[in-house]
C-alpha cells in the first residue's frame, strides 16, 4: 500500500509538469474489485484533449465501472487515474473540484423528477458553482434551444419522451461547462429515432472540442465520429486505435469475435 502511494506522482507535481499535449484523461493499470468480483484488471487508456473515444465491449466487461472511475463515482483499488492534471486515484482527491470539470450522462437519464427541465439544467450551476441566477438561466435557455427543447422548459421529466429526457440530461451536464463528458450507453434505452437525436447532440459537442468518452453499442456512430475506439473485455483494454483499424483489421481474436457478433 505504502509503496504504491510513493510511486504515484503528487497531484501538484502532475499539474505543473503537464506538457502541452498531455492527455485529458489517462488511466494506467487501474484495478477495481467489488468483493471477490474483479471488474477492472489493469486498465490502461489515454484520451487526447478534444477527442471522441468510444468504449465498446461485451456486457459485464467493466465499461461502466471504467467510466465511473474517471469522475470518482467509483474509487479505484490500485493504479493511476489522471484527469486534466488531477490525480483521481489520490485518496485526498477533491472530488467536487474534479466533477465540476467532468460531466456524466447515464443510460436511464436520471433527471430529477421533482424539477422541471429548466430547473434540472439550472440547479448545479446555481448551487454548486454559485453563479448568478439570471446568467445561469440565460445559459440554460440557450442550451435548451440548442437541443430544440425550449418549448418543454417548464415540463417535468415525467412528461418528456426518453429521447427528450436524455437530451435534457446532456444539457444539464453541459450547463456546468465541463471540459470532459462521459456518456454511459446513453442511447441504449431509446428507440431508433431518438437515438439519432441524441447522437447528433453528442456529435455537436465533439465539434465544439469537448473531450467525449462514450460507452456505446452504436458501432455506426463509433465508426463515423470516434477518433479512438477501445475494446474492453474481462476488465482490460484488449485493443484500441482509430475506428478504421479496430473495425476493419482488428488484431486481437477477441475483438474480431466481438465485432463478428454485432450488427452495424
Amino acid at each position, binding site marked *: 500500500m505504502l509503496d504504491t502511494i510513493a510511486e504515484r506522482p503528487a497531484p501538484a507535481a502532475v499539474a505543473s509538469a503537464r506538457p502541452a499535449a498531455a492527455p485529458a484523461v489517462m488511466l494506467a493499470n487501474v484495478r477495481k474489485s467489488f468483493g471477490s468480483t474483479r471488474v477492472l484488471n489493469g486498465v490502461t487508456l489515454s484520451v487526447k484533449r478534444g477527442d471522441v473515444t468510444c468504449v465498446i465491449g461485451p456486457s459485464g466487461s467493466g465499461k461502466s465501472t471504467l467510466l465511473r472511475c474517471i469522475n470518482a*463515482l467509483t474509487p479505484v483499488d490500485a493504479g493511476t487515474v489522471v484527469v486534466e492534471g488531477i490525480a483521481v486515484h489520490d485518496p485526498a482527491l477533491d*472530488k467536487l473540484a474534479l*466533477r465540476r470539470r467532468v460531466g*456524466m450522462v447515464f443510460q436511464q437519464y*436520471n433527471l*430529477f423528477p421533482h424539477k422541471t427541465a429548466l430547473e434540472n439544467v439550472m440547479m448545479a450551476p446555481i*448551487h454548486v458553482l454559485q453563479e448568478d441566477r439570471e446568467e445561469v438561466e440565460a445559459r440554460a435557455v440557450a442550451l435548451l434551444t440548442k437541443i430544440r427543447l425550449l418549448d418543454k422548459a417548464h415540463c417535468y421529466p415525467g412528461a418528456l419522451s426518453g429521447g427528450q429526457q436524455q437530451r435534457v440530461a446532456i444539457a*444539464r*451536464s453541459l450547463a456546468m461547462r465541463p471540459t470532459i463528458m462521459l456518456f454511459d450507453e446513453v442511447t441504449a434505452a431509446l428507440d431508433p429515432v431518438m437515438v439519432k437525436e441524441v447522437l447528433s447532440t453528442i456529435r455537436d459537442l465533439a465539434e465544439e472540442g469537448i473531450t467525449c468518452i462514450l460507452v456505446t453499442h452504436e458501432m455506426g456512430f463509433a465508426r463515423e465520429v470516434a477518433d479512438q475506439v477501445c475494446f474492453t473485455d474481462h476488465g482490460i483494454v484488449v485493443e484500441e486505435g482509430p475506428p478504421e483499424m479496430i473495425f476493419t483489421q482488428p488484431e486481437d481474436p477477441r475483438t474480431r469475435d466481438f465485432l463478428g457478433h454485432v450488427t452495424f
Partner: protein
Amino acid sequence: MNALRVSGRFGVGMMGLLLASVLFGEVQAADGSASLLATMWKWAPLIGQGFLLNILISVVAMTLGTVAGLGLGLGQMSPIWPLRHAAQIVTQFFRNAPWLVLLFYCILLLPYEMRLGGLVVAMPAWIKATVGLALPVMGNVSEIVRGGVQALPPAQWDSAEALAFNRRQTLWMVILPQAIKPMLPPWMNLYAVLIMATPLVSVVGVEEAMTLTRFALSAENRSELLLPMYLALLIAFFAYCYPIARWTARLERRFAVKL
C-alpha cells in the same frame, strides 16, 4: 379501502353500542338518580378539555419526534461509520422499547425545571410525558426516513454526485424532496398510533381524557356509567383517527400509482 369501509361501519356500530348501553343503564339505574345521559353531558366539557390535551400531546410529540427522527434517520445513512452505527443503535433501541417504560423513564429522569442560560423552564408532567412519547416516535421516524431514502433509485445519488453536489446538497435538494411522498403514509400511520397511545400518560397522572374519565367515574360512583363513559371516549378517539386513516389510504393509493 375495504378495511376502511369496514372500520367506518365499526364506528357506526360503536355508536349503536353506546346508545344501547346508555338505554340499558337507564333501565338499570335506581329511581331517583340522575339520568345517565345527563350525567355524561355534565362531564363532557371537562373530558373534552382532557381530549384536547391528548391532541396537544400527540402533536407536540409528533413534531419533536419527527425533527429528531429525521436527524437520526439521516445519521443512519452517514458515511461516517461511528455516527452511522450510533444512529442505528439508538434507532433500534427506541423502536423496540415498550412505550410505557420509556414514559416512566422520562417522568423519573427528567428534572422539574430546566435551565437554558438564565431562563428557567418549568417541566410539568405533561411535558415530560410528551418527551417520553416523542422518543419512540423518533425511533420510528428514523426508520421511515431511512426506508424512504433507500427506496429511491441509487441513480439519483449518482447523477447528483456527478454534478458535483456535495452530500448535504444531494440530500436536501435531490433525495429528500423525492423521498417525502413515499414517507408520508407511514408517517401518518405512526401519528394514528401515537394519538391512540396518548392515554398511556394517564398512568403518570397527566390530566388527559382517560384520567379525567376515571376521575368522573369515581366521583359519580355508579357502575352503570362505566360502559357508556369508556365507549364515549373510544368514539372520540375513533372520530379523530378515522379521517386521518382515510386520508392516509388515499395518499397511499395515489403514490402507489405514481411510483
